[in-house]
């Protein structure tokens, strides 16, 4: 397929089909609705199933069922809808089911606004549902990267038997950009010999998909197994973009669409003689703590600034990475307001004036 111009939500749907996802369960909500709209039209053309569920709770449990049967399946929504899915996400993580969940974040809390936001960072990365679980959280900053990560996301999910979240925001969902559909890096994916297909597994045991462990010790063993898997993911799957850190006076950190604003601010700062570097986490979990630690050790770096469309969430992980070596500041807009590059420029000047 040659380069085409697509809206983020449509492109996510097209990428899922390219990744051989054939099942989508969901319920429409602005600003993510073009995703179910697109798949309701396109999935039947490839013998797939699109099902508009009666609620988000139903949709996430349908996803559990499809993933448990070994199918590549997806759901998507926007913030309030993702909140409704949290119980199911915890069960999916507990039953170790591979699937992709899309959150096109909007202003919150509550019904909030339909404008873009990044205030679901905590929910996505720290576990919005109950229990000790993790999702791989991928945060693209362009439509091209969105498509690439959706396609790779299905492979990551299958490789580790774990849910993967695509954390976009309203701008990612709604904006249009040129995009092409490429094959992901090749991975050796394990056979799904655990899927409930009606046959026994390779050891002759019945296949059961469940997250219930009645004995405490058994439940603890399950948790230890999950933790070992999470350590493996932390070792293998961290993604980030970093530039201009050597000789920088300040390191800016941002993810998703905010990083596009920030990159523009860095150019303006450069023209004004201020050198700012950037660390952009692409995986929010596992988080690239080491990159922040490395940047904090650079002598010229006086401070860090985390820029978010929230009231301060990722900044906590930035602080863990910087680990007290340099001061970490925060600048955020909330409720659906996207910061302008000049706001960031002003904030940087204020910080550098203070720490010099």
């Amino acid at each position, binding site marked *: 397929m040659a*380069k*085409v*111009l*697509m*809206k983020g939500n*449509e492109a996510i749907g*097209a990428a899922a089909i390219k990744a051989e996802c054939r099942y989508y369960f969901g319920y429409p909500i*602005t*600003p993510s609705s073009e995703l179910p709209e697109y798949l309701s039209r396109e999935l039947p053309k490839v013998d797939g199933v699109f099902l508009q569920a009666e609620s988000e709770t139903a949709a996430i449990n349908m996803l559990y069922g499809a993933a448990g049967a070994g199918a590549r399946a997806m759901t998507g929504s926007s913030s309030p809808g993702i909140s409704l899915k949290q119980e199911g996400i915890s069960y999916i993580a507990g039953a170790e089911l591979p699937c992709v969940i899309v959150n096109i974040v909007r202003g919150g809390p509550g019904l909030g*606004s*339909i*404008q873009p936001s990044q205030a679901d960072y905590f929910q996505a990365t720290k576990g919005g549902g109950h229990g000790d679980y993790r999702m791989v959280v991928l945060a693209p900053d362009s439509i091209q990267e969105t498509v690439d990560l959706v396609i790779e996301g299905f492979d990551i999910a299958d490789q580790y038997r774990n849910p993967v979240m695509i954390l976009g925001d*309203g*701008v990612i969902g*709604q*904006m*249009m*950009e*040129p995009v092409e559909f490429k094959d992901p890096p090749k991975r050796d994916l394990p056979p799904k010999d655990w899927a409930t297909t009606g046959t026994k597994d390779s050891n002759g045991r019945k296949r059961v998909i469940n997250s219930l462990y009645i004995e405490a010790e058994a439940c603890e063993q399950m948790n230890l197994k999950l933790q070992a898997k999470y350590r493996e993911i932390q070792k293998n799957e961290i993604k980030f973009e970093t530039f201009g850190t050597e000789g920088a006076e300040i390191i800016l950190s941002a993810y998703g669409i905010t990083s*596009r*604003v920030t*990159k*523009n601010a860095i150019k303006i700062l450069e023209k004004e003689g201020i050198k700012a570097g950037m660390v952009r986490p692409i995986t929010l979990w596992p988080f690239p703590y080491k990159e922040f630690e490395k940047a904090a050790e650079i002598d010229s770096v006086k401070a860090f600034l985390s820029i978010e469309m929230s009231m301060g969430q990722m900044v906590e992980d930035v602080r863990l990475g910087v680990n007290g070596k340099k001061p970490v500041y925060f600048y955020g807009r909330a409720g*659906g307001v*996207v910061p*302008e*590059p000049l706001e960031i420029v002003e904030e940087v000047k204020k910080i550098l004036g203070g720490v010099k």
Partner: protein
Amino acid sequence: MRDDHRVHVITGHYGSGKTEFALNFAFKKAEKQDNIAIADMDIVNPYFRSREKKAELEERGIKLISSSTGYSTADVPAISPEVYGILQSNKYEVILDVGGDPNGARVLGRYFQYFQEDNYNMWMVVNANRPNTQKSKEVIEYINRIQDSSRIAMTGLINNTHMIRETSKEDIIRGNDLVVEVSEITGLPIVYTSVLEEVVPDLPKDIKGEIFPISLKMRPYWL
């Protein structure tokens, strides 16, 4: 620029660039006239709608009719009753910025009595880089469905083929080939080829329709 009718209806597949064209068209008209009105009738898109450019429009003396809810970012399919006013009064030259697809065009149906043969323009904005409007058959299907749901006949085509900031003359030429084919089959004239200002000097001579240079009004400068 053409100076034929008082009412211009901008329609097309969503993402084809209707609002960018409509805003540029309004700005251009307003350079010579002070009676321009634009009605944002988009009930499909929640973002990137002309109502977000209220200040810039009013600065140029352009009357903006937005949603009757008064919110610039609400997701409510509410059309202002003021639309009747600008259609009934001869005072304004009117641009109707309609939402994408047949779903978006449905809002026009209630105004069909104001559209008589030869008293309006209804243009189909075509972007050959959108996955669903790359072939003439697909574009014609959209034209037919938009006409059906709006109850108004299309009067012309606009080649607005682009890749946002990556647009090159090859995009325009590909779009030209497409609208020429659509025009041959449907008989609809190619009214404008709308092109980013900076790409205009690269264009070959045989591009159909009046070249209409535009600048990006809806896209944030940092994106």
